[in-house]
């Protein structure tokens, strides 16, 4: 059968669809493992929001930095962390990216310049500014992408970070993933304005605001901010409108939003939208083959996480201090 040659855009869309689908499948497996008690504590899924991280990170060079919140599995995978390392960490296994000591909210990968997930909301935003300062100082041309939710905008560290980044003209993009809820609190009950990007105005910082429905558009719009950071050393605050399909964490009964609202949002799923667009050009068979490949990779990562050993207690001290300390 004849197929029109793919444009560059379609190649890129296929690549980004693959990333989003990998993240979606890995996280669906996380939810299952959590229900089985194989993953403990608090598990925050990115399901519904994948187009933000995947699109934004696609606009980066491999040596650029990414730093985010506890909702970090998708960011880490988009930045290059293998699914095995992610799942093993969530299962608390020694082969996890943080040797099983951190769990879901602590995905670090020095090789891929993934500077972690953070459990204290807002705590990482000033750190991101510091990372950007180091890049500027070292003249290495690297850009830092700092992700957070709209809930972080109400804590002081957010403002301190933006204030410094603007003052020092740092090569950084602050990405506020506005999924409309900070845990059970809708945006209108936590912020005095609706347009979060306006927070940039007080710092005389560039800003942008758009919906994350099309992963290629996310890439292009974040790309503009990345260029501003890299070429002019100017920070940007970007508000990306998105929606999480699951609860805040796995232990959230989610009674603060209606099933109708969630269903309506699921119809706009950017992952499905990307798939539909690709099927229209490439045909279902090609996409089904890719999905099957991703299925096998996911199954392999789950198996790996299940079989990997737990860390030994001996690891606690050397990961706290280097060298001896008083006992």
């Amino acid at each position, binding site marked *: 059968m004849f197929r029109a040659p793919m444009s560059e855009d379609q190649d890129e869309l296929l690549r980004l669809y693959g990333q989003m689908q990998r993240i979606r499948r890995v996280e669906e497996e996380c939810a299952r493992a959590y229900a089985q008690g194989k993953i403990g504590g608090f598990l925050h899924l990115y399901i519904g929001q994948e187009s933000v991280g995947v699109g934004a990170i696609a606009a980066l060079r491999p040596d650029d930095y990414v730093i985010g919140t506890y909702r970090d599995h998708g960011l880490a995978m988009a930045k290059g962390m293998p699914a095995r390392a992610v799942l093993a960490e969530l299962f608390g296994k020694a082969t996890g990216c943080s040797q099983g000591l951190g769990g879901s909210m602590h995905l670090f990968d020095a090789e891929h310049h993934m500077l972690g997930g953070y*459990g204290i909301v807002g705590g990482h935003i000033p750190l991101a500014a510091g990372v950007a300062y180091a890049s500027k100082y070292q003249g290495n041309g690297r850009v830092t992408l700092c992700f957070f939710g709209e809930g972080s905008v109400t804590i002081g560290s957010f403002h301190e970070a933006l204030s410094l980044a603007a003052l020092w003209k740092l090569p950084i993009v602050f990405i506020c993933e506005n999924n409309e809820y900070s845990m059970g609190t809708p945006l209108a009950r*936590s912020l005095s304005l609706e347009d979060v990007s306006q927070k940039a105005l007080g710092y005389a910082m560039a800003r942008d605001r758009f919906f994350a429905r099309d992963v290629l558009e996310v890439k292009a719009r974040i790309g503009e901010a990345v260029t501003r950071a890299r070429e002019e050393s100017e920070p940007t605050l970007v508000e990306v409108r998105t929606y999480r399909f699951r609860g805040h964490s796995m232990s959230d009964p989610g009674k603060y939003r209606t099933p109708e609202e969630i269903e309506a949002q699921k119809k706009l799923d950017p992952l499905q939208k990307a798939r539909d667009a690709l099927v229209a050009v490439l045909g279902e068979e090609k996409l089904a083959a890719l999905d099957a490949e991703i299925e096998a990779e996911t199954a392999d990562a789950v198996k790996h996480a299940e079989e990997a050993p737990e860390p030994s207690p001996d690891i606690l001290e050397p990961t706290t201090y280097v060298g001896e300390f008083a006992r």
Partner: protein
Amino acid sequence: MPQMNMVQAINDALRLEMKRDDRVVVLGEDVGKVGGVFRVTAGLYDEFGEDRVIDTPLSEGGIIGTAIGMALYGLLPIPEIQFGDFIFPAYDQIVSELAKFRYRSGGEYPSKLVIRTPVGGGIRGGHYHSQSPESQFIHVAGLKVVCPTNPYDAKGLLLASIRDPDPVLFFEPKRIYRAAKGEVPEGDYTVPLSKAAVVRPGKHLTVVTWGAMLYEALDAANQAAQKGIEAEVIDLRTLWPLDIDTIVESVKKTGRVVVVHEAPKTCGLGSEVVALINEKCFLHLEAPPARVCGFDTPFPYTLEMEYLPLAHRILPQLVTTAQF
């Protein structure tokens, strides 16, 4: 008498005091419409309205800072910090402002409030949902710290904390929020602050503990009893100012003491307890005071059950101390 768990007992105390005293307001993240992540404030929003049960944005410094301001002019705020681990963005307000207000204003402004927050491990929460930060607040003069271990005490101690003239941090051990059940009187009563409870009498050694580790200490004590060692277990209940008299009385009798706490060992409250025992009844000691504690590391995700001073770690120390 109704049976309650800790969550219900604390909820009951809040409701009772809000009815009795219209200065009382509750504020925090998702405490209103949602009723709190652990449901401790459930129903209060419907009963008392949004001016008294205030949903705040994510803003710990703002929550505590505004609560201090409210307290200066006649309100009695009971802010909730969703997890004790998230209290540190507000640490500056607590340490620099709240703790020093009475002193700094020559006694003119007591700045009375009660900060409620769940603490401790045992729910696989990892570093940011498990810590026990009591000594970081006890070290700051001007704050009282309370930590109940059962529903009866939870209600009575919370009511006493609200009515005490000083600022109180009320630490709720989340591991036993629902597991610890018991009879709780309807209506008003208080459990006095700074009064420890001898939960299990014994003559061979004294165990001082608090929070969720009380149950581990009791478990270890019961196992020790099978080896002929009778441990006296003391639940501090109020961590600061602590009831040193009850501890000293017990140690004078037993001559031996083991302190058990979840927080890391170094500079934990156990250090102060041991120092006070040394100062007040050194000549009665027949064994070195011992501590069984969390490790001097961040609170781990996977190795939680190694880190916590559970019965299997307490028991050998009871035997060693008893046989010293």
